[in-house]
């Protein structure tokens, strides 16, 4: 009888062990408190199919000496983002790199960020090196992003390259119901133009400054950019939660003597003018967990409809001339002075994101539209993300560029693009 009880107790204990949930876990890098070295990044394998718009002047410039190509082009590329951070209590060094591999003769390496930081205290810091800043509250556009990298509204969350700079930040908190926090950021940007590729004139150094305040539960930034070479700019932005599921934000920027690249009489020219740019947007979450982001953006130095038509006529004129040097020059202007997805003045951006609809696990479809209000052309994309395993993501990303002849999106070199991406994090 005693044996039987022992058997029952033994089985019971083992069942308990078998069915007990294991709640213990290992805390990453917990032991290294004084100094910490962390490496990480991700690999992005990207296969793209492009449906060309062969009547587009951009297409004809890009492939002017390639003969008759098929309507469908493909691209296969590996992109490696590798990051390293070394941090002691007060001093740190941070590195972000980006490499692309197309084939053995077409591989590239870029330093996105490489800077050191020194914590003067828990509320003041100095950073020096190449660093990425992101000013402004807008999701797809940032009129006040004076120190930001070139932003792609098609993929605003993409890692970007920073600028060489020296920055200082200081934070102060207050025991007040109105003003809770204020923070000052000062950035010194060395001149971009170099003499003998090495030296620069000290008077061409730019200075950017931003004062952030949390005022009556509203984030408010006031910023400025002073330069003898680039336009002087002032601006402000705000962001606040109106309800438990609605956020509103806005930006306003004034540029003094901003330069605008235009075409006059089939020749490139630069126009200097004061300009206002602004953005107003909101983010809304509904009861089905759908997130909607909507933004209106006015670009004060964007092209108006007549200026855009002049620009397209200039490109077409160069192509029609069949003169190789004129075509190369037009391509150079197009890539140097008219780069970006949005060249004109007024846009609406709308993004709808729905995680796991109909209980389809790990699947997040979204749709976004960049709509040109002046010429009624649009870019429509429907990225579908699937994350079946931890640290991996598959993205199926079709993009449609829609518009009549002569419109911005109706003129792009591709009418459809399909991307298949596999991202692996480590």
């Amino acid at each position: 009888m005693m044996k039987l009880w022992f058997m029952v107790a033994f089985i019971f204990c083992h069942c308990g062990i078998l069915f007990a949930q294991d709640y213990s876990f290992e805390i990453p890098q917990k032991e290294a408190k004084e100094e910490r070295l962390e490496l990480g990044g991700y690999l992005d394998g990207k296969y793209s199919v492009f449906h060309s718009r062969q009547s587009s002047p951009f297409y004809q410039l890009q492939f002017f000496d390639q003969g008759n190509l098929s309507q469908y082009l493909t691209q296969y590329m590996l992109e490696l983002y590798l990051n390293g951070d070394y941090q002691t209590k007060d001093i740190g060094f941070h590195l972000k790199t980006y490499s692309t591999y197309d084939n053995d003769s077409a591989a590239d390496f870029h330093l996105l960020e490489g800077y050191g930081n020194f914590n003067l205290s828990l509320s003041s810091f100095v950073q020096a090196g190449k660093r990425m800043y992101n000013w402004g509250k807008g999701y797809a556009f940032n009129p006040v992003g004076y120190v930001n990298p070139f932003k792609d509204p098609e993929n605003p969350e993409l890692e970007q390259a920073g600028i060489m700079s020296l920055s200082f930040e200081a934070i102060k908190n207050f025991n007040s119901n109105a003003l809770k926090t204020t923070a000052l950021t000062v950035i010194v940007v060395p001149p971009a133009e170099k003499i003998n590729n090495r030296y620069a004139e000290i008077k061409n150094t730019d200075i950017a400054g931003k004062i952030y305040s949390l005022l009556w539960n509203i984030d408010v930034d006031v910023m400025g950019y002073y330069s003898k070479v680039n336009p002087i700019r002032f601006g402000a932005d705000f962001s606040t939660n109106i309800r438990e599921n609605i956020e509103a934000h806005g930006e306003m920027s004034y540029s003094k003597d901003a330069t605008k690249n235009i075409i006059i009489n089939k020749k490139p020219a630069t126009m200097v003018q004061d300009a206002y740019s602004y953005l107003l947007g909101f983010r809304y979450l509904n009861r089905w967990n759908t997130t909607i982001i909507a933004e209106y953006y006015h670009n004060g130095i964007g092209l108006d409809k007549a200026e855009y038509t002049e620009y397209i006529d200039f490109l077409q004129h160069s192509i029609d001339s069949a003169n190789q040097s004129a075509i190369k020059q037009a391509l150079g202007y197009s890539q140097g002075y008219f780069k970006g997805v949005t060249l004109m003045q007024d846009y609406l951006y709308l993004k709808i994101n729905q995680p796991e609809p109909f209980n389809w696990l790990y699947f997040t479809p979204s749709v976004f539209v960049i709509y040109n209000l002046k010429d009624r052309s649009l870019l429509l994309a429907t990225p579908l993300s699937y994350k079946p395993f931890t640290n991996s993501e598959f993205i199926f990303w079709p993009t449609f560029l829609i518009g009549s002849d002569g419109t911005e999106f109706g003129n792009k070199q591709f009418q459809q693009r399909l991307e298949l991406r596999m991202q692996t994090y480590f």
Partner: protein
Amino acid sequence: MVRMKKAVIIVAIMAIAVSFSFAEDANQLLKTVDEKLMPESYAAYRRLINEEPNGKKKEYIFFTVKKGKDKVAMLYLSPASEKGRATLRLGDNMWLYIPNVGKPIRITSLQSVVGGVFNNADILRLDFSVEYNATILEQNQTGYVLNLKAKNKTVAYDKLKMWVDKKTLLVTKIECYSASDMLIKTLDFKEIKNFGNGVISPSIVETYSPLYKGYRSTMIYSEIKPRKFPDEVFTLNYIPKLGDLR
């Protein structure tokens, strides 16, 4: 007749006074529940497990710091795809910092930065007494049932029903309701653990919801240490540096 009127007024005043004193008792009790549940300022490590209807699990590990009643910040330590993300909450204000994006963006309390049943308000929870006014709904020999009503409309849940153990004054269960009295989710507080430094509190919080059938999320506390921080740590400029506090 005049006497009658006087009597009615006196009874009404007494009723109001008694109800105020009960509310005051309930709010005082709620403050004690807050104090018992977590130290006022602390650093903690947490593991979050989101269990999906198909039995698959997704896990996160966070480093969390809190100061006072309404300042919380949290850094993602794993998995690699989320590492370096951080969230900050100051009262009704919440932000999410994504390293690739390079700036904190405002988020709302009803969003969920980690998916699963926990939303931002659960993960970056403030003291209950900051967001809710309490009244005692029931009490018996073993515990209290409190009715908590949100102080304003930016609070994630309009009403909470909270079960408190009378002996330990630790919360054991919470039901979260919308303004239309719909049950949004249930939180179970389990496995009371001595974390040292006088911190004795539930080490596991489990949540499930009739709105997310088959989903279950579990938060496990591994370490809770009382610790003081300057206010400047809980600011947008400091979010990218949260890891320096570990």
